């Protein structure tokens, strides 16, 4: 890999609009198409600082700057259009998070890459509405949170409350939300308001390994820990009254519940298994990539097909998981307010995935083509009149659910025609953090600990301590900047803003 100065790197970057930059071919070797990333002024600075740091060896060896990752993806075989960085783009394994890349299914060299989907397959967001207001919920906030904790197990080692056998799991992997519906955990209309109607038909449980199934079995209906959460939110702003009404949102202060979760350990294992299998096959098929983490396989190869079928199974698992938690949430609310979920109007507004690969029809240079879209940290955003979105959203466009990081505000957007053309109907997914070196503190606070821990022959490598919030560098791409940039770029439009009032997490 050529090492260039920051100035040299900048020759390959060109601002093409007030909120978009082009990454020209040559930025990294073998680029088949150009890259593009969306950023407003604040986000732009973060992108360039990240790049500058890596040039001046202030970077983080193993972690590449977002711009480089976008460009490395543009070097993958069969890529079509552009390698797109959404405004929240930030470092990820293989692909950056917030990177969309489409591959031409008609090209035998086109590939599929698990790094372009993510380990947490079908990590996504579901939003339920209620007809409650903030003033109904505020006085009983703590009891409601406790009730949700009682219903939804959280944390490492937690086990699901809904009984599940190995056979149930097989069926869930194959049938997705249809399993939930059959078992009585879902309402029929929930499926309507879910991507793929909550079931990817190409799923094949046989392509999900035993180890993945073993990891998944005890975790169904659990929330795990980390950045997954269930949030009780209230409507804070309504930007598009017409769209809001179609979603059943009538007024500010209306209470909603957002569920942010994915396929847990099962998804992780499916991705891990595929990466291992594909790495082996790459030599055989003579596939070359710029970064080992971009392990991939030809879409039509055995490894590629196996992965897509396993991925679909994991996606189904995630939908069953979100559905189980929907069921448990409805129970918790119903109990709390001595009512029924139906009377509380607890419908699913929509359910989106932001870590997934989809086969979709798109127009490329005027011609209709079948593409395999990798959306990693990126959400589908179909425009009005698209045949794949539900009838009630035909006039508004698909609702796009953007969860901020836990505790910050969230948004609902709608898809646009322009997004369809520029990003194949994709938009951001949330917030993110740019790589940034905080000014290192000469901090010897930990020497006592280090001395105590020292042992002959054992190497101990020390990372710097976590800075207190106020001292932390401004490397954070907050969700409002991100969403505003998408809106300004015309690839999705703001409809509603929500703020959290209680959080359930591990």
């Amino acid at each position, binding site marked *: 890999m050529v090492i260039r100065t920051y100035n040299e790197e900048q020759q390959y970057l060109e601002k093409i609009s007030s909120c978009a930059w082009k990454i020209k071919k040559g930025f990294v070797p073998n680029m088949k198409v150009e890259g593009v990333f969306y950023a407003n002024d604040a986000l732009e600075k973060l992108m360039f600082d990240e790049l500058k740091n890596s040039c001046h060896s202030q970077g983080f060896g193993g972690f590449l700057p977002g711009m480089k990752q976008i460009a490395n993806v543009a070097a993958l075989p069969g890529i079509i259009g552009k390698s797109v960085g959404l405004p929240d783009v930030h470092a990820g394994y293989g692909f950056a998070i917030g990177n969309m890349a489409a591959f031409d299914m008609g090209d035998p060299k086109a590939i599929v890459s698990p790094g372009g989907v993510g380990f947490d397959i079908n990590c996504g967001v579901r939003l339920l509405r209620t007809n409650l207001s903030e003033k109904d919920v505020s006085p009983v906030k703590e009891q409601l949170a406790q009730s949700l904790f009682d*219903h939804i197990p*959280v944390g490492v080692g937690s086990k699901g409350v*809904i009984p599940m056998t190995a056979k149930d799991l097989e069926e869930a992997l194959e049938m997705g939300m249809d399993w939930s519906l059959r078992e009585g955990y879902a309402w029929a209309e929930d499926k309507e308001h879910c991507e793929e109607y909550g079931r990817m038909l190409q799923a094949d449980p046989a392509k999900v390994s035993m180890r993945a199934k073993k990891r998944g079995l005890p975790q169904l209906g659990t929330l795990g820990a980390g950045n997954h959460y269930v949030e009780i939110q209230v409507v804070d702003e309504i930007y598009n009254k017409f769209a809001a009404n179609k979603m059943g949102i009538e007024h500010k202060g209306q209470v909603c519940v957002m569920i942010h979760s994915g396929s847990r350990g099962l998804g992780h294992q499916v991705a891990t298994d595929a990466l291992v299998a594909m790495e082996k096959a790459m030599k055989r098929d003579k596939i070359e990539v710029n970064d080992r983490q971009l392990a991939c396989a030809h879409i039509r190869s055995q490894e590629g097909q196996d992965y897509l079928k396993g991925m679909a199974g994991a996606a189904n698992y995630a939908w069953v998981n979100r559905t189980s938690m929907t069921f448990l949430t409805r*129970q918790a609310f119903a109990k709390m307010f001595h009512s029924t979920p139906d009377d509380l109007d607890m419908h699913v507004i929509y359910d989106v995935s932001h870590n997934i690969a989809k086969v979709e029809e798109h127009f490329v240079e005027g011609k209709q083509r079948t593409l395999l879209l990798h959306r990693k940290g990126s959400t589908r955003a179909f425009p009005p009149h698209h045949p794949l979105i539900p009838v009630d959203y035909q006039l508004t466009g698909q609702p796009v659910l953007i969860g901020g990081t836990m505790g910050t505000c969230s948004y609902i957007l709608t898809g646009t025609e322009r997004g369809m053309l520029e990003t194949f109907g994709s938009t951001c997914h949330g917030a993110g953090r740019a790589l940034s070196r905080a000014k290192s503190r000469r901090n010897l606070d*930990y020497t006592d600990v280090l001395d105590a821990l020292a042992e002959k022959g054992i190497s*101990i490598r020390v990372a710097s301590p976590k800075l207190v919030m106020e001292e932390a560098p401004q490397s954070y791409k907050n969700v409002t900047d991100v969403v505003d940039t998408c809106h300004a770029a015309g690839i999705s439009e703001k409809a509603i803003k929500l703020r959290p009032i209680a959080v359930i997490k591990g």
Partner: protein
Amino acid sequence: MMEHEFKYAVIGGGIAGVTCVEQLSALCPDDKILLITASSVVKAITNISKVTSILEDFCVVEKPSVYISENCPNVTVKQTRVTNLQAQKHKIITDEDEYEYGKLCVCMGGTPNIISKNCSYVLGIRDTESVQEFQKRIANAQRIMIIGNGGIATELVYEVEDCEVIWAIKDKSISKSFIDAGAAEFLLPQLSQDKQSSTGSAPTKRRKYTIDGNKFRDIGHGTGTALGPDWSEGLLLKGLDKISHNVKIEYNVEVEAVMEKDEYRITLTDAEQDALSVWPVYVKLTNGTVYGCDFVVSATGVTPNTETLLKNNKFEVAEDGGLKVNDKMQTNILDVYAAGDICSAFWNPSPTWFQMRLWSQARQMGSYAAKSMVSHTRNQDILMDFCFEMFAHVTRFFNYKVVLLGRYNAQGLSTNYELLLRVTKGKEYVKVVLKGGQMQGAILIGETDLEETFENLILNKMDLSRYGEDLLDPNIDIEDYFD
């Protein structure tokens, strides 16, 4: 009409036994199940016990009668002591009666090791009866001595207020079996701070366990069920003085002798006797120091409770005294299974799992033993529960959340590993064990939000060499990166 024949029997009403019975009942609602326990039954407090699309079960918290029988109608509970087991005849003999079983799971736990068995000033604190006794005694105490370096000792040292505590441990760092010396160093400052009042109003994120009311009958020494994770909840562990924490730690010592007041006095010269501050009991440590105190707590582990079982049956016993079990929780004797503190895991474990006598493992083993018994009855194959793939335990020490994953202290790795460390004084302690670039274990203290990510990295067996110590750089959102 008294029942004497049961398809499944479980001996022991602690977490292992109760979980086993619950699981058996769920899997075989039509089979007769017997639970024999010498003391009160541990019950899980939960608002939900079973949720299906149609039925939802509520368990209200304080029920006067035995909770198990009410919610699992095919289970019979007998509070009595087992005097003998005739495994070949599939017979259990108790104080009051005899029972026949198809398959049996023994979950009789362990008897607390007491450093001085005959001294009334030495209290074991491993089980339910001793906690109540402790609570009584601490109310009148100005100074106590705590011997032991495990989880109970660690929690107790922090929980006790308004009383001076001398903590004597045989290791060179505190809580050795749980955390490493570095983490110990990190936690120590908490002992000189005031104890944080527990956040009673915050919601609890996991199932809570308690003891079933006052059904305890004094059957015999050491027959109480082991403490679950919430043992100190609701207890008043305050002494006489008005100080929050006053803890002195003696490292690298063991107890040489425990002497009551008069016993000790006569060993001193007249002058020494006059100068002596009077306490009911005195403890001499192996470093020569003698401490007087109101009473001594012996939290020095347990010995598996196998005496009754070994009377007439040739069980294979491990070095630590536990009944050996295979990867199906079976002992070497036909139709007898074992789970919890009484057993010793004798299968070839996954590289990131090992046995530790914890309530969480008791629960996992109890559940898996039940599934195993049922699958054998039905002639079905069974796969080992995934919880035995990677060690995972969450607890609280000194008011910090502590998460232990995999081989968190590089157990069994000799010197073939390296460590990554991130410490932020007073906030968090993160230590990762790497071997060949793969994460083998981790200790996470504080609200790190890393446990899920690390659990996945350990189980994915990913090669992390390319990241070096950047893996723990706080400027990188590592959990997002691997999402």
